[in-house]
């Protein structure tokens, strides 16, 4: 019902915004969807080549040495996995959470963030080599009750990540089915045919919409729980339990929080690019960026708060392990990544977003979002690289400050290749799933009006429940 194209009433999404109707949404999106431009091909070609170089670098890394005893040189690889999991893995959460709260301003962002579930396919591949790098559990602390327990920790980690990826893809497909059905009727050629085979059953009956809504809510809840669990497991298995004596109960939660923060950052940056390259300007009003910016500000403050909670406890406790952990991960060996992490994850977004003029713009929240992504990148480096580099993970105390490990050329190419690979998958997926959620934007048009009240005009938003 809600995406029926017979609703031609022109409405505005903001007081000064252009008049829109639901037919325009379908037309714009399908035109963009079927029109493969030269720029798109160029970007794909560039990303593809960088990705190939990354693969070659990875092969050289394998030739250098692979296995538990050689794990130190895989630190940056492990950090890259964490970065992919934190950013792309968390991104669909934006769509899930804002759908729960029934916000209207989320609508243009939903699919942009959900589409990152496709990157999960890449993340899980990236994870497979890591499974051979963890030292045995004997003699060290771990989340797992016993080291004899079947498949701990690697297979559990693997299936958790896999579950997350599958759940994310299911969420993406379910959410996109109505849009795919619309698009399959608006184009010809193999892609339209493919979409038709996928979504031919969708007619948009009331019952179908009902199942669709319930399915999205349930899958969203699963995704949320899985994500928090996966972040916790990965963080403990690949950072904390590799450092003897390090007991930091807030760190998994801190990583999960960083994930939510970067999810917003990633969505903002992607939407910004979309707004400037695609034809969707009218459907993505500034107000949506503005609303996001407030959440991003709150999350950046929370980021600093979680960090301080860990810092003050360790600083105050002053046991040898605590002092060595602080020195290794923050104040001596990895001081530079830590400072960059702090600046980009907290200071810059905070200083930018505390001003309403900056929040109430498109570029301001986008810059803060980009900054948060850079910050998370350095966070994974300062945590995952030293953890994998510690020689003896057994025992109950970290006896010395660990020296820093700088990336070599191979590491840099592997990281670039990883980023390019993730972007490549995202761009390719956007040719199967439309990047603007047609049904959600159309639904939003139903509930948005600009009306006069006495001597001025205001936006009126309907709240159906």
């Amino acid at each position, binding site marked *: 019902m809600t995406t029926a194209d017979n609703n031609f009433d022109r409405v505005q999404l903001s007081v000064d915004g252009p008049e829109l109707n639901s037919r325009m949404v379908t037309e714009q999106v399908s035109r963009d969807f079927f029109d493969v431009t030269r720029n798109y091909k160029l970007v794909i070609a560039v990303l593809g080549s960088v990705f190939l170089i990354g693969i070659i670098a990875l092969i050289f890394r394998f030739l250098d040495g692979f296995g538990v005893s050689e794990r130190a040189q895989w630190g940056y690889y492990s950090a890259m996995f964490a970065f992919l999991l934190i950013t792309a893995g968390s991104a669909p959460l934006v769509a899930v959470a804002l759908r729960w709260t029934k916000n209207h301003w989320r609508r243009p962002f939903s699919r942009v963030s959900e589409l990152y579930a496709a990157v999960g396919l890449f993340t899980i591949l990236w994870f497979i080599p890591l499974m051979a790098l963890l030292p045995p559990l004997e003699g060290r602390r771990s989340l797992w009750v016993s080291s004899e327990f079947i498949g701990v920790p690697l297979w559990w980690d693997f299936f958790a990540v896999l579950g997350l990826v599958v759940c994310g893809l299911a969420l993406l497909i379910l959410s996109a089915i109505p849009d795919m059905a619309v698009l399959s009727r608006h184009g010809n050629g193999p892609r339209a045919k493919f979409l038709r085979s996928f979504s031919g059953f969708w007619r948009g009956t009331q019952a179908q919409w009902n199942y669709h809504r319930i399915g999205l809510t349930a899958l969203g809840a699963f995704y949320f729980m899985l994500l928090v669990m996966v972040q916790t497991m990965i963080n403990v298995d690949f950072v904390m339990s590799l450092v003897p004596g390090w007991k930091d109960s*807030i760190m998994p939660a801190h990583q999960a929080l960083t994930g939510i923060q970067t999810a917003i950052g990633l969505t903002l940056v992607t939407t910004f690019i979309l707004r400037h390259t695609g034809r969707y300007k009218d459907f993505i009003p500034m107000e949506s960026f503005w609303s996001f910016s407030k959440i991003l500000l709150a999350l950046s403050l929370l980021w600093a708060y979680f960090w301080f909670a860990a810092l003050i406890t360790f600083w105050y406790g002053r046991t040898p392990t605590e002092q060595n952990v602080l020195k290794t991960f923050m104040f001596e060996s990895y001081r530079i990544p830590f400072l960059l992490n702090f600046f980009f994850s907290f200071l810059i977004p905070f200083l930018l977003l505390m001003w309403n003029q900056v929040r109430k713009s498109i570029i301001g929240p986008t810059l803060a979002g980009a900054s948060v992504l850079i910050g998370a990148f350095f966070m994974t480096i300062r945590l995952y690289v030293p953890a994998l580099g510690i020689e003896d993970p057994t025992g109950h105390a970290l006896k010395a400050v660990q020296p820093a490990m700088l990336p070599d050329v191979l590491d840099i190419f592997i990281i670039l290749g990883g980023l390019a690979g993730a972007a490549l998958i995202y761009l390719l997926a956007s040719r199967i799933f439309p990047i603007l959620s047609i049904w959600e934007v159309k639904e939003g048009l139903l509930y948005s009006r600009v009306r006069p009240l006495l001597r001025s005009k205001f936006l*009126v938003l*309907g709240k159906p429940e």
Partner: protein
Amino acid sequence: MQEGKILGYKTINRDLLRGLFENPVKYWAIVMFLGLVVFIAVFAAGFMVNRGIGVTGLNRPVFWGFFITNFVFWIGISHAGVMLSAILRLSKAEWRRPATRAAEVLTIFSLMTAVLMPFIHTGRPWRLMYWVFPYDFSRGIWPDIRSPLVWDPSAVNTYLLSSILFVFIALVPDLAVVRDRSSGIRRIAYSVLSLGWRGTPRQWKLQAIAGILLSALILPVFVSVHSIVSWDFGMAVSVNSWHSTIFAPYFVIGAVHSGVSGVVTVMIFMRWLFGWEDYVRREHIDALGRLLIVIAVAWFYFFAMEFLFGIYGQEGDELATRSLQMFSAPWGWLFLAFIITSFFFPVPLWLFRNVRRSFLWMTITTISVNIGMWLERFIIIVPGLARKQVFTQSWYTYAPSPIEIMIIIGTFAMVLMLFLLFAKIFPLIPLFDIKEGQILTDEIKVGRRKVPAVIRED
């Protein structure tokens, strides 16, 4: 989500000021009873100051017992106010309107009560001055700001002062309404308090900005207060189960859990007492119930993490403390009661719409949460101390004395009594906010259905 009918301004004034101008017997009976309980508690506290803290159940090594538990509990309740009103104001949730002031006032009174607890706990309250305030010029002994026990007053006082000012600023327009309805000496008093408010567009504009700006400023303070309270415990290395980095957010989210539940309980109570059927509606407690589900689940995650990392280290003494908390009587029973009343009983119930929309069930579940959260603090504080490892010669257990119990019960009566007295003098539901909500209500036609809508100001 708006189900209420449009009410005239005169009706709103009459209904919401009823508490100020009418004197029902039921109201004064409750106040008198509460006053009596408070009086007994004051007597008990006086007795304790006179005889020394030997009359309590405190001992070596359990130096902290009911008083400190109660301190943390009331600090927790005080987190409802700002959490609810600030977050809901910032997110412009329409259903906040009747709830904000009650929540803020609950903050103030529970915070005052919380401050009282360490005062009483010291046994010689007047000596607190030396430890907290930097004024001892003659002897040159200054408070040690490296101690969490000094961070505490700085945070609590900031929070208390800010909340009082916040409530006052939001009260000014309503005080003008009361001023216009009253006469004689009352009119003079309200005229002074309302600062000469007339309701020009400029004044309203600043009132609106004040709500947003002060909310944004108080929120970071609110988070810091309970964090610092948690650091009273978390900084200590010597007590097992305390030195955990997650303590700060764990305490904060726990505080929000108990605080929001407390607000729901109080709102339903006020609805019954003052007959606010048209203002505190089912949709409001429904929305609060949904919010509570989210908060409770988040709290449970932090609880699980705290617990998980307690046993993660696999160190003998820590494991022993955890097993004491969970499996040995009487702590084990209290632990079971805590986890059931604070999570496994209320949360599954809240999933049902009928429960969320039932005043009776919401009262039962929210009170259950607060019983559980009180026990939670007790379970955190006492077993850890009873089995302290480092620098301890003796292990011992703890049971509260009648004096402590009397004082604790007195604090509950005191908060409720102050709340009711406040409602006698000031309107507890913001009149102007309710009226504004009625102006901003609109409708959108979608097909055959009329969907309730809201006018957005930005």
